[in-house]
């Protein structure tokens, strides 16, 4: 069975943020919610690396484990989805997620956060009919049902962000690493990491 994953090749990511706007575009994500973000470490210094991060659709998903209403489910493709009807907006998934993926549309006093929103791997929602208007308005698009991969990865400017079956993308990544000689060969790497 396929297990869908994301993998970001830090050697190729240039922080162009296409993944972010592609996500906004495909899923009509409003201002203030970022299902995906790019983080640049050592910004402006030797050894700078950018990595695009969103929900990683973990196999043993912490969000799923801590959700008090058990609204998360993993699809047969390995995509972690959550049911917005059930979500009570408690924020536990946000506490648990190592990647900061869960987003909340509101942030108001008395714990009012609204329904959690996160990357759906462009696979819609768990309870809605594939590609229905309801699904689109509630969760965004369902590309997986159409046989397509998440738009962020599909539109990545340098193909740094890979999406697909975990075996396949790790194979792609490994072959790139082999081609590069296994070791990043960029200016300043040695000074940044003392090699």
């Amino acid at each position: 069975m396929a297990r869908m994953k994301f993998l970001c090749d830090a050697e190729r990511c240039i922080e162009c943020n296409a993944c972010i706007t592609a996500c906004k575009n495909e899923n009509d994500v409003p201002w203030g919610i970022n299902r995906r973000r790019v983080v640049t470490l050592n910004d402006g210094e030797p050894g700078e690396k950018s990595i695009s991060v969103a929900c990683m659709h973990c196999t043993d998903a912490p969000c799923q484990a801590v959700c008090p209403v058990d609204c998360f489910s993993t699809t047969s493709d390995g995509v972690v989805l959550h049911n917005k009807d059930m979500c009570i907006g408690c924020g536990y998934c946000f506490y648990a997620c190592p990647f900061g993926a869960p987003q909340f549309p509101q942030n108001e006093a008395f714990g009012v956060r609204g329904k959690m929103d996160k990357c759906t791997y462009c696979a819609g929602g768990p309870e809605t009919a594939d590609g229905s208007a309801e699904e689109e308005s509630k969760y965004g698009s369902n590309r997986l049902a159409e046989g397509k991969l998440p738009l962020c990865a599909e539109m990545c400017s340098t193909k740094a962000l890979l999406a697909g079956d975990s075996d396949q993308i790790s194979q792609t990544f490994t072959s790139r690493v082999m081609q590069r000689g296994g070791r990043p060969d960029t200016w300043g790497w040695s000074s940044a990491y003392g090699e």
Partner: protein
Amino acid sequence: MLNSENNTTDEGSRRKRRNRRILWTFVAMWMIVVLAPIPGYFMTTDTVQAKGEFTDNPRSAYWGEIRQGGSGYTTDRAPEAGNLVNDSGEIWRVLRNDTISPYGAWLIAFILVAVAGYFMFAGPMKVEGELSGTKIKRWNLYDRCIHWIVAVTFFVMSISGLILLYGRAVLIPLFGREGFAGLAMFCKDVHDLLGIPFAVALVMMILPWLKDNMFRSEDAEWLAKSGGMFDGSHPSSGKNNAGEKIWFWLLTIGGTVLIVSGVILVMPNLEPLRNTMITMHILHSVSGLILIAVSLGHTYMGSIGVEGAFNGMVTGEVDTAWAKQHHDLWYAEQMGEEAPAKAKKSAKSSSGPAGLSTGKVSAS
């Protein structure tokens, strides 16, 4: 007189010191219970990270750095968005799911079993001898109102909190996920909103009751005898016995923790850091669970456990016999007497004058 005065002062300060010692020991123990499991999880994480460093990939150091919570630049303006990977959520998950939940459940179960066992074994504490029929004012209207406000809000918050913590395991099999989600949503809203009256009432209860809950010399003996729970004795006690004082202080400390952590948790608009929220959540659930567990004991004592106690908090008045038996020193104080020298040893020996109308005591 001078001598005796000196003696009293000495005794008083010794007593104070002892009380303080008891208090601090108690706080320390409580802290240990709460914090003891945490280092274990830190150590677990360390081992995982250490494993990574042995590989040859130069990127491992880099990823290690990221896992440590290294932060970078991002266009996302949410707080901590620059933090690529934050492991602390995992610690929280393990603490909440594998430590706090099961131990909390065990603790509550233990108390329930203990109380039930005690009830079956010893039955309720009855007032020994005849009720005098004479009532003495124990709780004024303010006390009673505030007590019940706190009690009711605490009860509702406890139930809703427990549902949020254990509902997934206990109630989903009964109601199904959709059914439970509605209940959980209701519980969350109730829990978030009721926090305010609870917090206000708790403070309004604690402050006026402080003076009656200072530990005094007789409390040691009371504790030593476990309040006579097992030997049927009636150790001396002021208005509140040592057990009630411990409950009071637990409630004060635990309640403060609950309120502070709760306020931080329901104020996402103030954008507290994730680690703060995680820490607050742990404090909140641990203190909540302990208070819930202990409150079961209190509820037992205040209802079927001790005959007359419940009525006392409803009507505000207790039978003088009851008062003499359970709170001899207070009773004596109310009667305007010096504490009888031997009263400490045995409440039985004290036999207060009955039928004296002092304004505080009225015939029923």
